[in-house]
């Protein structure tokens, strides 16, 4: 019996001794103390507890670096220029960095840890990216498979964004969605209405976010999103504007059109909106209202399968057929495309062939 207790005590002591050793080691090796993060040469200084990734540390401090994968190192979006204190380049970063970026000290913020004082440079517009709490103001059907979701901001109560940008909508946990996920949606409302945003959500069978928005979300529910993100916005120039959208790709294009109307931009503008059937078209009244406000706006609607609908007096065929017909040459023109990747790619190919330089074709692909 003594031997039994003896063995228990001996093993427990050994275990306790090793645990103590590791605990002591952790308090020395795993502790980085308070670290200073200097952003854009003193524009903002943060004092944080070291030891976590730069991405999550910044997020905790209310600075949202775009990240689609949530810090797993698989999307390569969370690039940040680290001028001081980033440590050596890690093998998990190199697949996502171009040689010039490496030379320029660009790093993946989800891979590097804050281990000491660190100096970083981020585009100032990232300071505008915030997490917003909002309430569902309205949820209405645009077509049989599309809903317009209008959100009124609670905290913060205004959003500053460039028309054409998108937000990341947080889908909370629900039955078919075991953990909270983020999905990107472009803002369809004008930037002149900073107290709320509208999103267009197409139902995708089995989609985590679309099922949630189409079936579970009700008016007055509270939802969270962060943003704005993206470099799809109207460039300042005098060139003629071609806006091309299919499906829910109309969302950022509408926001850009409101901007053209509200700011009194007098550039020749053509909107080409493509859908399959007549019942897939939406925002037609809004387009009529915009035509009143923008004298130089021409709206072209085109259906790829109009015959099933009966009477249709608009264009027939895909958006590329319309572009082919109306664009004679590429001089002094720029194009903004938004919709499914196949449409965007074929339009880019056509427009380049017409002579519009690649750097004047802007697009946002909706997967």
């Amino acid at each position, binding site marked *: 019996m003594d*031997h039994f207790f*003896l*063995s228990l005590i*001996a*093993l427990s002591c*050994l*275990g306790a001794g*090793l*645990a103590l*050793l*590791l605990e002591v*080691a*952790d308090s020395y*090796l*795993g502790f980085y103390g308070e670290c200073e993060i200097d952003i854009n040469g003193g524009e903002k200084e943060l004092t944080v507890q070291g030891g976590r990734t730069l991405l999550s540390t910044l997020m905790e401090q209310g600075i949202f670096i775009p990240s689609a994968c949530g810090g797993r190192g698989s999307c390569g979006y969370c690039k940040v220029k680290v001028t001081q204190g980033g*440590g*050596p*380049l*890690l*093998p*998990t970063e190199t697949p996502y960095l171009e040689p010039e970026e490496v030379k320029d000290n660009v790093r993946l913020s989800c*891979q*590097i*840890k804050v*281990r000491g004082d660190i100096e970083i440079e981020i585009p100032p517009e990232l300071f505008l990216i915030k997490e917003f709490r909002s309430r569902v103001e309205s949820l209405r059907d645009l077509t049989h498979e599309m809903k317009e979701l209008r959100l009124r901001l609670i905290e913060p109560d205004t959003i500053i964004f460039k028309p054409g940008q998108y937000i990341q909508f947080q889908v909370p946990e629900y039955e078919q969605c075991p953990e909270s996920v983020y999905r990107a949606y472009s803002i369809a409302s004008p930037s002149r209405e900073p107290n709320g945003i509208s999103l267009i959500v197409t139902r995708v069978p089995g989609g985590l976010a679309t099922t949630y928005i189409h079936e579970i979300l009700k008016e007055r529910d509270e939802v969270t999103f962060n943003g704005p993100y993206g470099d799809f916005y109207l460039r300042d120039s005098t060139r003629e504007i071609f806006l091309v959208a299919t499906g829910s790709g109309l969302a950022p294009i509408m926001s850009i059109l409101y901007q053209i109307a509200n700011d009194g931009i007098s550039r020749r503008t053509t909107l080409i909106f493509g859908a399959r059937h007549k019942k897939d078209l939406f925002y037609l009244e809004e387009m009529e209202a915009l035509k009143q406000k923008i004298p130089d706006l021409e709206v072209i609607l085109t259906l790829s399968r109009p015959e099933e609908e009966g009477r249709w007096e608009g264009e027939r065929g895909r958006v590329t057929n319309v572009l082919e017909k109306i664009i004679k040459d590429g001089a002094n023109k720029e194009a903004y495309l938004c919709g499914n990747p196949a449409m965007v790619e074929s339009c880019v190919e056509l427009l380049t062939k017409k002579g519009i330089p690649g750097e004047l074709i802007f697009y946002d692909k909706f997967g």
Partner: protein
Amino acid sequence: MELGLSAFIVFFAAIFTNNILLTNFLGMCSFLAISREVKASLGLGLAVIFVMTCTSALNYLVYHYLLVPLGLEHFRFIVFIIVIAAFVQLVEMVIERSSPVLYVVLGIFLPLITVNCAILGVALFMIIRNYTFLQSVAYGAGGGIGWTLAIVAMGGIRQKLKGANIPKPLEGPGITLIIAGLMALAFIGFTGMIQIQ
């Protein structure tokens, strides 16, 4: 002097004639998984050398000064494993702090050193063969260096093989196992030279 000399022999024997990887076939999983490039295999090898040397010393002390006096030899497996696990955890903390690059390169294989059978093998061999403290440490260090030698050699060969035209069914683990077999054949050729037990 006698003792020092035999520790020296044990050290060399563990590297060449009784290479733990190529004659006892212990520690194969990380040998196959991390041997794609010399750099990563060398990093893992160094970690194994360090862990093996230190744990053989620690395990020797724990076994002879704790387990044997208390008559608890039958606990040796669990005790050895706990000691190795704690030590690997410590090494992981040190590497994460001192070399983030090596930490990322080794990835999951660093914690997997915990269950690297070569390390437990060294601890058990030293008990079976009745080594002294000095011999045990020499055997641990030699075993680690021998393991590293084998994995780095394999890393070098596989790096060379990248451009080689290997029959499709043999690509990857297939050809690696065949190479391991040939390397083992060469190392087993040394076995008669020194007897260490």
